[in-house]
């Protein structure tokens, strides 16, 4: 029998392939719920979920909120601005105060890597990581995996190139873990300043030029250039980045096969991806967004069934 997920979903690194597949397979029936005229099932009726977003987010927050509402949970959104966080309250104090109002789950996004695990170890509610710093963004990777599986019918043996700002990307990290665990091959492509040193030790292929990625891959996951996380000097200019690393239709026309194009959004059109590619026939950017709701419904549904006693010991040497 597949081991249940445990109390929290922090990242894909600590999960088994079976646990990742359980989430993907559970997402399948949830796709249909969003196609109904009454888009709601009573599975989480009476559960209270707090969306604690310390970083701006449109897609992920709304996607989680739809997932929660379509499962009949009651939801509250807390943003860092307009809450006591702006008065200097700590993450744990905010969460403990919310728990004192008897909540069941927290979906957290935070700019610090490790924030979700830190929180999960200190509160009884289930914690879902909606992106922590440069660490992981597990539900984004799950929806990428689901979209790839929809398109190719399999993940095993698939060649996926993750292109662009890998250094600052939690999406890249979660994707690498998820893809490798499910038997896909992973390539990374970007300017050396935006690839973490030693990334090949994870078992990924480094593709120095975007042309190499296009020739090698079955699918490209094009990352957003995270201008807000960059100090300076990572790329000479946006125009030059587009000229050297941009995914353009001219480049894709020379590909040996039709590539499937993913992008986690929000896109910098004309920087990492050109508009005619983003809106083109091989783009699955909008199906990714549709799948995001189903994947998040699956994660919430599965976690709500796990009692706190089953919490797996946190991974890593520095955990207590």
């Amino acid at each position: 029998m597949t081991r249940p997920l445990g109390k929290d979903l922090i990242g894909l690194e600590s999960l088994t392939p079976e646990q990742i597949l359980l989430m993907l397979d559970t997402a399948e029936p949830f796709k249909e719920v969003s196609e109904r005229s009454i888009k709601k099932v009573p599975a989480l009726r009476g559960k209270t979920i707090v969306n604690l977003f310390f970083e701006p987010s449109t897609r992920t927050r709304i996607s989680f909120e739809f997932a929660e509402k379509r499962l009949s949970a009651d939801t509250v959104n807390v943003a860092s601005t307009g809450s006591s966080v702006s008065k200097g309250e700590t993450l744990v104090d905010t969460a403990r105060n919310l728990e004192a109002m008897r909540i069941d789950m927290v979906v957290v996004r935070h700019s610090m890597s490790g924030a979700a695990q830190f929180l999960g170890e200190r509160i009884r509610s289930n914690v879902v990581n909606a992106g922590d710093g440069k660490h992981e963004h597990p539900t984004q990777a799950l929806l990428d995996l689901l979209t790839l599986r929809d398109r190719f019918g399999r993940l095993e043996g698939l060649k996926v190139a993750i292109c662009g700002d890998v250094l600052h990307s939690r999406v890249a990290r979660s994707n690498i873990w998820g893809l490798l665990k499910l038997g896909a091959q992973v390539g990374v492509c970007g300017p050396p300043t935006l690839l973490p040193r030693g990334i090949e030790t994870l078992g990924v292929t480094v593709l120095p030029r975007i042309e190499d990625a296009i020739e090698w891959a079955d699918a490209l996951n094009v990352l957003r250039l995270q201008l807000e996380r960059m100090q300076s000097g990572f790329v000479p200019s946006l125009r030059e980045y587009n000229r050297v690393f941009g995914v353009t239709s001219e480049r894709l026309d020379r590909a040996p096969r039709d590539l499937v194009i993913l992008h986690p959004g929000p896109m910098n059109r004309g920087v990492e991806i050109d508009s005619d590619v983003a809106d083109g026939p091989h783009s699955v950017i909008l199906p990714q967004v549709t799948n995001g709701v189903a994947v998040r419904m699956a994660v919430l549904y599965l976690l709500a069934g796990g009692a706190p006693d089953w919490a797996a010991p946190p991974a890593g040497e520095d955990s207590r």
Partner: protein
Amino acid sequence: MPPPQRTLILDAEAIAKTLAEMADRIVEVAGRESDLLLVGIQRRGVELANRLATLVEARTGQAVARGKLDITLYRDDLQAIGPRPIVGETMLPPTLDGRMVVIVDDVLYTGRTIRAALDEFADFGRPRRVLLAVLVDRGGRELPIQPDIVGFHTTAAPGDLVNVSVVELDGVDSAELVPGATP
């Protein structure tokens, strides 16, 4: 502990005969309805509904719509049980408004599955009439729900399991009584 004794209550031949009789009953009650929809409850009800639909089509010469329903997300014990059960596929027409629907399941026991199915139907519209057809009614109802069409009646104690196998999933058609199989 010795393995529990199994008693065969229906073999393949008996199941074929029982389904034929159930199809006759469906034709009697609803055969003339052009909007007849047979909805199987995941998982084995789906296979039985498919077979019944084919049998009804052979009798009336009219196509019969098929649907499948997974009631997991509507279970009344979802908050109490441990690890979450696997959710199966639901496939129904966009609306059930005004339709003649027959719910098909393999075994009728407490009636809670059917309660959940009726709740789920309400989210898909308002059927004109809903009938319940089951292969085996084992008694032991916990809710005021009764079947309209029953293939086979038996009385099983609360700890007993009535296990229906179908060729499509299990390689064999059978219904067995396994005493003391559930705690």
